[in-house]
């Protein structure tokens, strides 16, 4: 039993008054500490021979390779090519995913018609689909874009679906009684309610888009980061492969920063929920 018979005040908290304008800003540079530490450790490992050079090149070597590619080679062209493909594919896949995910989540008919085929399709491996896609869309840019669209579709679809299903129905009811029609409810309740989930889906979709692109850029491509890296792999140029991986890592960090910023903007209302 919890009945306590201790004497008087047991827990004392004394909090000094804060400085007048204490603003708690998230210290973002903290987030850079561990990536930098990783790189430093890696370089140290290479210098001391713990990581033999013939197995993994040192970061300095990789950076030099990157510099060479950037100046001599057409690194920016490769990047632009990949970014274009990723953006177009993401746009197509994303729009489809949000539309179909919303239809499946909102309508009983949609759920029965759309969801089962999607559940079937979600595990189809890209590599296995390539021959069929070649037949359907050819070996041009369409193929790469289709693969990206496919890859980004699933995380966004599932997160849209779950995000909408998780919306507090009491809020939807309240919106109904405020006279909001189907579309206005979508705009004012469903969309903002599912937004955190959509952001998460976007995060995963961006990753999936890049991964799919690597597969796509192995087929009849002369440009793209995936092409660059996989060709280097064929030609046993480990430094270029690792540089390619580094580019992907930076793209990952960059997209994280962008999405975090977008989240901070659009999900400002959640800070109140969390802080107090």
């Amino acid at each position, binding site marked *: 039993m919890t009945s306590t018979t201790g004497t008087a005040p047991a827990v004392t908290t004394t909090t000094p008054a804060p400085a007048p304008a204490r603003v708690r800003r998230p210290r973002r540079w903290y987030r850079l500490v561990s990536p930098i530490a990783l790189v430093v450790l890696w370089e140290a490992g290479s210098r001391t021979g713990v990581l033999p050079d013939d197995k993994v090149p040192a970061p300095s070597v990789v950076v030099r390779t990157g510099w060479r590619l950037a100046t001599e080679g057409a690194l920016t062209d490769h990047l632009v090519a990949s970014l274009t493909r990723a953006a177009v594919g993401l746009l197509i896949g994303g729009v489809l995913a949000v539309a179909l995910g919303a239809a499946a989540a909102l309508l009983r008919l949609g759920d029965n018609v759309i969801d089962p085929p999607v559940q079937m399709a979600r595990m189809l491996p890209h590599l296995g689909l*390539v021959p069929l896609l070649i037949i359907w869309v050819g070996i041009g840019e369409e193929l790469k874009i289709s693969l990206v669209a496919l890859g980004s579709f699933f995380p966004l679809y599932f997160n849209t679906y779950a995000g909408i299903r998780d919306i507090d129905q009491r809020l939807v009811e309240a919106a109904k009684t405020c006279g909001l029609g189907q579309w206005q409810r979508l705009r004012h309740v469903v969309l903002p309610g599912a937004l955190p989930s959509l952001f998460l889906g976007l995060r995963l979709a961006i990753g999936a888009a890049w991964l799919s692109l690597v597969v796509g850029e192995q087929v*009849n491509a002369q440009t793209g980061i995936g092409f660059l890296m996989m060709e280097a792999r064929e030609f*046993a140029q480990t430094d270029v492969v690792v540089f390619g991986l580094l580019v992907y890592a930076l793209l990952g960090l960059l997209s994280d920063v962008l999405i975090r910023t977008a989240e901070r903007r659009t999900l400002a209302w959640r800070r109140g929920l969390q802080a107090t």
Partner: protein
Amino acid sequence: GEEGAGTSAAPGKLRIGYQRFGGLSLSKARGDAPGAEWSLFESGPALTEALKAGAIDIGQVGEAPPIFAAAGKIDFKIIGTSEPVPQGEAVLVKSAKGFKSFADLKGKTVALNKGSNVNWLLVKLLEQSGLAIDDINVKYLKPAEGRPAFDNDQVDAWIIWDPYFALAEQPGVQILADATNLANNREYILAAPDAVTGKADLISEFLGRYRATTDWGIANADERAKILAPELKIDEPTTKRALARSAKPLAPVTADVGAELQTIADGFTKLGLIPVEVDMKARIDEQFNEAFL
């Protein structure tokens, strides 16, 4: 060099990397090396990757992978080769399109795998027909993607090697040219340097048997096809046709072989396929030649 992490093969055990259609398949199917550890690779570059990681001791590849591996500063020795296999790679077209020679492909789309033996064949074909690379529209496709593209007329010609070559020889498909008089298209046996020193006995013992098996296979083509068809998952007639032109006796490595590889490597350097000049001659290791004599 030391053992790659996670690959803790017993020191007395030979670790062999092979590709499905390579000559080693027969050796594996016949049980030539009962104590060995066999690893299957989907391509030559994948095999040299494993060689670099210290995951295998020896392996067999076509003529391009050793060059790229050398350019990639992978440490290995070339310890054996095969007789030339010029009929093992060819330019395929649909006969309905009426191409007569490679020169007719001017302005057409040609598919091939970048940086493999057929890439070298393309260089020689262009040279022979007096065409420049820009005269044709090259599409770089891996074998598995080249086939649907070729079948569905998304490319006009496909330069490909066996067994994809044999598989694609369907009715209506015509061989426009093969590598005869253009390229030797040999196979090469590569070995890790520490295996060359540390497992020399195992290697020469195995190479002896491998050679015998290869010779047996050439002498008994029907039986060889019967053994390999299920292994390759290709029907027997196709297997037989492919093996008949592509399975050649093993041969010792010589300075000439080194020079031949060097020519290809220099050609690749000129094409920009590899960023540096490489010394292929230095990779030749003749110490196991006895097994092939």
